[in-house]
């Protein structure tokens, strides 16, 4: 994301960048590359903050990513749309958990537990 300013990007460009970041996260997880993952996680958060700040909360633009071929993209799209599409996002998390596609299935399962207990309150 070096050189890219989320504030100057269109919603479509932000969604495209979100996908690119999540695919990079997936790669970092396979390589156990924590430094890379943490950097990409912060970049993802900046994209999400920007989408949220746009009129109407444009995180809804991530909903179509529920069917993205990459499981990390699906997982992060679902977790980060829980505030704007709670039922649909939760169903995607259920599906990821059931898929046994690790490590995303584990994170989805933990997220569902945290939602159910009220520990995690998406905003």
């Amino acid at each position: 994301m070096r050189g890219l300013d989320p504030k100057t990007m269109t919603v479509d460009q932000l969604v495209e960048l979100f996908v690119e970041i999540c695919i990079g996260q997936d790669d970092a997880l396979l390589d156990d590359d924590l430094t890379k993952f943490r950097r990409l996680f912060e970049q993802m958060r900046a994209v999400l903050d920007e989408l949220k700040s746009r009129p109407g909360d444009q995180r809804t633009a991530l909903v179509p990513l529920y069917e993205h071929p990459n499981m990390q993209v699906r997982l992060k799209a679902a977790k980060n749309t829980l505030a704007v599409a709670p039922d649909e996002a939760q169903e995607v998390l259920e599906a990821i958990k059931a898929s046994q596609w690790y490590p995303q299935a584990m994170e989805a399962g933990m997220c569902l537990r945290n939602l159910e207990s009220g520990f995690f309150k998406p905003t």
Partner: protein
Amino acid sequence: MQVSAASWRTSLQLHRVSALLWGKVLEAKLQALDRAVKANFNPNQPRIPAGNPDGGQWTRVGGSSGRDSDAISGEANRDSGTDANRQSSNVVLASFKPGNEDDQPPKVPKERPRSSRGRTRVYKELAKWIARGVLKEVVGKRITALLTILDEAGWLEPAIDSIRTFADPPKSLEELQQDAYTSAPGYDVHHIVEQTSAERDGFPRSMIDAPENLVGIPRLKHWMITGWYMIPNEDYGWMPPRQYLRGKGWEERVRVGHEALIEAGVLKP
């Protein structure tokens, strides 16, 4: 001690036969489990719609930098001492067919990757591919495929146990605690309450190394859980669960530790 080539080949063959048998036994157990689940099936459980290649099948079973690479496996190795019932999902992801035979085996290089990270990546991809076969009851087939891959990529041989154990079915807490005292290839001793942060927070070794805090689990699952604790997570205020747990009491750490084992498919819910 020198081992003759013939002896080594015999040992290798035995290892392969053992792995193959293991896969068949596991598959038989899974089929029995599947029959039991279907005998008590839930009519509301969603199925993949007709027209889909998997139409009519249940979508799920029952409710319910280099230094960094070393950081996860290093922490996990240190840990090992060796190197809610939920509503069924109604979502059918059209492009997603878990365990389907479209789920091709990962590409495995014939030559041994030079870096530890490169090798670990292949181990993990293979292990996860085999484990995904559980949903389709093709674990045995995938173990057989792994043995064929081994013919071309013999460098995988030392990791075969770690790869195959990733698909182990979940066990009870008592079984896992017993396994902590039974050394077996492909398994590690895992601390339910993470030992490093617990020690930093002043918990005594007598609690950290108590039998109830130790479980024997598949090595790559052990690494996966350790990794989950280390990476930032939206649920925990955008910080890693390990950081969230700093300063927390023992009970909260146990709760998170048990849940992580369940969601990793290691501990029975």
